[in-house]
C-alpha cells in the first residue's frame, strides 16, 4: 500500500466550529486549505449533524450552524475531508506531514502551516460502579440523542448527573428529543446573586440560559442540585443509582444518601478536557487551568503555539464552548495564512469578541467548578483503567511508593497503556494524583506518541514512507 498525497498551504485538523472557521478564514485569504475530521460529517461536537433525516435535531440552530460553516468553508475553497483520522503529525522541512487514516486508506498531507482544532473530549471521573453497563458519559448521551433518531436504546429510568453548565445542554437535548429524563443531579448550587452577576455582565447570554432552564423544567426531571452520584448499583448491569447531598465542604453526606431504583441509563459527566494529543506530540507547550478543563495548548492572542508554523484553535486551547471556538478558529486561520504571505482579513473584531466570549465562559466555569480530586472515595478493587484492568488500589499504592506524576503512574501500573491510551482513565488518574496531594503542574500530562490512535501496520508504513520522502528530499 502506498499513501495518497495532498499538498496545501494550511492544513486544519478538526472540522468543528473552530476548524471550519479556521479553514474558511485561511481559504478566503487565498491559501490552499485541507481540513480533516475523523467524523463522518463536518460539525464537530456542538454542531454534530444527525444521521437520520427525521431526527428532531435536524432543524436546530447548532446543526444549521455546522452546515452553514461547512458550506462557507467549502465555498471559500477549502477542501474538507471527513472520515479522515489524523494519526500522526511531524515537522518536516518546509512544514508538516500529517499521517491520515482516510476511510481505511493511507493519506499523507503536506502543509506549510498547521491549525489544530481538535476540540474536547469527555472527562469521565471514576466512582463506585462506574464500569457497569448502562453508565455512559453525558457527552455520549448527547451524541446518541443528536445523531440517531433521538432515542436512547435502554429501557428504565434515566438519570443525568455530574457538574457543569453542559449538563443543562444535555437536558435540553432530552427535551428536544422527547426523551424522558427522570432525574437531574448537579453537584454545584451556585448562589443566585453570583448567577445574576454573571448575566448582568453578559446580558446577551440571558435568553439562552433562560431557554436551558425552561427546557430542563420541560424535561420533567426531578432536580437534585447540590447532590452527587455516590454509587451505581447493579449486578450485571445498572439497576439503581445512589445519590447524596453535599456538605458545605463539598463532601457527600452519606447519612442522607438515597437510592433511585429502576434506572436503565446513568449519563454522567464532570465537564470536558481539551484534546491535546497532536499538539503534545508536536512538542508545543501546554498549561494547566482547572476552569479550562485542565491541560490545554498554549497560544498567543493570534493562536500561535510555541512551535513555528503550528497554530491552535477552539477547545484545544481550553474549554469554552462553541462561540469562542468559532472566533479563535477564524483568528488562527487568518493568522496562519497571513504568516505564509497571504493577505488575510483583519480580525480585530473577532479578537475583541473572543475576549468577551472567554470572559463569559470563565465566569460560567467559576459558577460550576469541575471537581479536581476523585468525587467519591473508591473501593480498592474499583477499576480505573478498563483496558489494562488497573484498580484504584493499584494506583494508590503506586503513588504512595513514588509514582508522583501521570507518566510514572502509567509506567508503574500500565494504566493508560491500552487501546484507549488514557482517553478514558486519564482524568481518573489525574484526580487520584490530585487526591494524593500532587499539584497538577507536577502531575503533568502524558504526551502522545505515534500513533495517536491504533492504526493497522500497512497504513502506518505507507504514511511513514511518505514522511520519509518529505524528510529526505533535496
Amino acid at each position, binding site marked *: 500500500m502506498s499513501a495518497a498525497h495532498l499538498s496545501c498551504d494550511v492544513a486544519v485538523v478538526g472540522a468543528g466550529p473552530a476548524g471550519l472557521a479556521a479553514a474558511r478564514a485561511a481559504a478566503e485569504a487565498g491559501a490552499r486549505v485541507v481540513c480533516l475530521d475523523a467524523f463522518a460529517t463536518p460539525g464537530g461536537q456542538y454542531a454534530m449533524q444527525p444521521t437520520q433525516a427525521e431526527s428532531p435535531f435536524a432543524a436546530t440552530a447548532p446543526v444549521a450552524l455546522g452546515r452553514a460553516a461547512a458550506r462557507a468553508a467549502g465555498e471559500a475553497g477549502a477542501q474538507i475531508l471527513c472520515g479522515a483520522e489524523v494519526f500522526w503529525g*511531524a515537522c518536516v522541512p518546509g512544514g508538516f506531514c500529517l499521517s491520515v487514516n482516510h476511510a481505511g486508506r493511507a493519506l499523507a498531507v503536506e502543509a506549510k502551516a498547521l491549525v489544530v482544532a481538535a476540540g474536547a473530549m469527555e472527562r469521565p471521573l471514576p466512582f463506585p460502579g462506574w464500569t457497569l453497563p448502562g453508565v455512559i458519559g453525558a457527552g455520549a448521551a448527547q451524541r446518541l440523542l443528536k445523531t440517531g433518531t433521538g432515542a436512547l436504546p435502554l429501557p428504565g429510568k434515566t438519570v443525568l448527573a455530574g457538574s457543569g453548565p453542559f449538563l443543562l445542554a444535555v437536558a435540553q437535548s432530552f427535551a428536544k428529543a422527547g426523551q424522558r429524563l427522570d432525574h437531574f443531579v448537579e453537584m454545584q448550587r451556585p448562589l443566585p446573586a453570583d448567577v445574576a452577576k454573571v448575566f448582568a455582565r453578559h446580558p446577551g447570554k440571558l435568553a439562552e440560559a433562560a431557554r436551558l432552564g425552561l427546557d430542563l423544567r420541560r424535561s420533567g426531571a426531578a432536580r437534585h442540585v447540590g447532590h452527587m452520584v455516590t454509587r451505581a448499583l447493579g449486578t450485571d448491569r445498572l439497576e439503581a443509582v445512589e445519590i447524596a447531598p453535599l456538605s458545605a465542604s463539598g463532601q457527600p453526606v452519606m447519612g442522607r444518601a438515597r437510592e433511585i431504583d429502576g434506572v436503565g441509563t446513568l449519563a454522567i459527566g464532570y465537564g470536558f478536557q481539551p484534546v491535546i494529543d497532536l499538539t503534545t*506530540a508536536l*512538542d508545543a507547550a501546554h498549561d494547566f487551568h482547572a476552569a479550562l478543563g485542565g491541560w490545554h495548548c498554549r497560544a498567543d492572542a493570534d493562536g500561535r503555539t510555541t512551535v513555528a508554523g503550528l497554530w491552535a484553535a477552539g477547545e484545544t486551547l481550553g474549554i469554552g464552548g462553541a462561540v469562542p471556538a468559532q472566533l479563535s478558529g477564524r483568528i488562527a486561520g487568518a493568522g496562519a495564512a497571513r504568516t505564509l504571505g497571504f493577505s488575510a482579513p483583519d480580525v480585530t473584531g473577532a479578537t475583541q469578541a473572543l475576549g468577551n466570549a472567554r470572559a463569559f465562559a470563565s465566569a460560567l466555569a467559576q459558577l460550576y467548578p469541575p471537581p479536581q480530586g476523585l468525587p467519591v472515595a473508591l473501593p480498592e478493587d474499583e477499576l480505573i483503567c478498563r483496558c*489494562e484492568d488497573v484498580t484504584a488500589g493499584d494506583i494508590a499504592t*503506586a503513588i504512595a*511508593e*513514588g*509514582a*508522583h*506524576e501521570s*507518566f*510514572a503512574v502509567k*509506567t*508503574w501500573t*500500565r494504566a493508560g*497503556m*491500552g*487501546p484507549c*491510551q488514557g482517553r478514558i482513565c486519564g482524568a481518573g488518574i489525574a484526580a487520584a494524583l490530585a487526591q494524593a496531594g500532587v499539584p497538577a503542574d*507536577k502531575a503533568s500530562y502524558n*504526551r502522545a*506518541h*505515534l*500513533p495517536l490512535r*491504533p*492504526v*493497522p*501496520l*500497512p497504513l*502506518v*508504513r505507507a504514511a*511513514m*514512507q511518505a*514522511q*520519509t520522502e518529505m*524528510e529526505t528530499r533535496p
Partner: protein
Amino acid sequence: MTTLPQSAEVIVVGGGIVGLSVALALAEAGAKPLLLEAKSFGGAVTGGSLAAIGTHMHGLAEYGVMAHACDLWRAFAERTGNPFEHTAQGQVGFILDAEGMESGEGWVAEERALGAPCRMLTPAGLAEVEPRLTGPVLGATFAPDTATVNPFLAARTVLAEARAAGAVALDHAPVAGLLVEAGRIAGVCMADGAEIRAGQVVLASGPWSQEISVSAGVCLPLVPRQAQCLAALRQPPGTIRRIVSAVESRGGVASGYTQIQQAGSGQILFNTVVDFIETPPEAKDTVREVPSGFVLTSIDTLATLFPSLAEIPLLRSWVRFEAVSPDARFLAGAVGPEGLWVCAGDNGSGYCRSLMLGRFLAGEIIGAALLPGALQADARALYAPQRFTQVAA
C-alpha cells in the same frame, strides 16, 4: 516530595534499574545508601526496555558474569514471589542468509563450549518452537534459558526491596554536581542548591553520568545513543512464544538489530534498527519521536518474519537513550577522586546485568567480594573504568 537528608554514607545518583540494583546491594550489605533520582524511578531507558535476561550473543568474555547475572534474576524472582513476571520463555535468533548461518553456528559452538544450553534449529525445529514465525528463514539459534522480566514491575520490586533493606530513595531529586574537597568526594550538590554530604558517591545515571562527573574533573567516555521500540495491539497469548532476535554478526561490526517479543500484557513489542541513529548529546534531555525510517524497517521485519501479524494495529512507540562506551562494555568501579564510583555504560543491555553489577560494585565499595568465586575479580577486570584512562596515558 520528602525533605532531603543532610548527609548519607553512600549516595547513588540515578534511579534506573542499575542505580536501584546498586542501592539494593549496598543496603543488603549493611551500608545505608541514599538514592537520588532526578525524575521518576525507572522512567528513563529502564522503563522503555524489552528487558531480556540471557547470555546468548553477549560476547564470550562476559559469559561467566552474565550467567551469574541471570542466576541472580532467577533467585530474586523466587525470593520475592516473582511480582515482575520473570519468565524463561527462551530466545530464537532467526537466520536469513549464509552469513547469518555462519555467525549463528559460531555463537552456538562457542557458548556450548562454555556450558550454555543453546543449540541450532532447522526450519522444521523452528516451526515447533515458534509456530507463527513462517517467514523465509534458513534456521535459527535457540537459547532456551533466556528470560524476560516486566521492566516497570522489576524496577519497582528492586526499589521496594532496597527500601525494605534500609535504603532511602527519593524521586524528583536532581543532582547538579559533585562536591570534591581535598581531592576526595564530599557529597553532591542538588539542583536547588542544597548540599548532601557523603563519603562515597555512585554515578548510575546512564548517559547523564558523564555530565555529572565533569564537576569532579572526570571525563567518562560515554555517549548517548537513541533506542526505540514499537508496540502493537494486544494479541492472544502465545502468538509469539519466544524472544525473537536477529543473530548478531560477530567481531563487533554493527550489523543491524532486531528484537520482537510478546509482553505479558499481550502486546507485540518489536524493533529493528538498520542504521544507528545520530544522537546529539543534548537529545537525551528531550522527548523524541521514533524516526520514520525506523518505523519502516521495524514493520517490514515483523511482516517478513510473522506474515500473519502484518496487518495488526500499531498502538504505541517510544524513544529512550542508552549510554554507549567505546568497547561496548560497562564502566563499573572507582573513578577520579577518592570516593567516586561509576556504574554506567549499558550499551543497550544493562537490564540483564544490573543485579550482578549492583552486587559487584557494592562489594568494591564496602571492600568485600559479593560476587561468588573468581567473579568479583573477573568483573573488576572487565569493567574497570581505568581501562580508558590507561589507554589515554
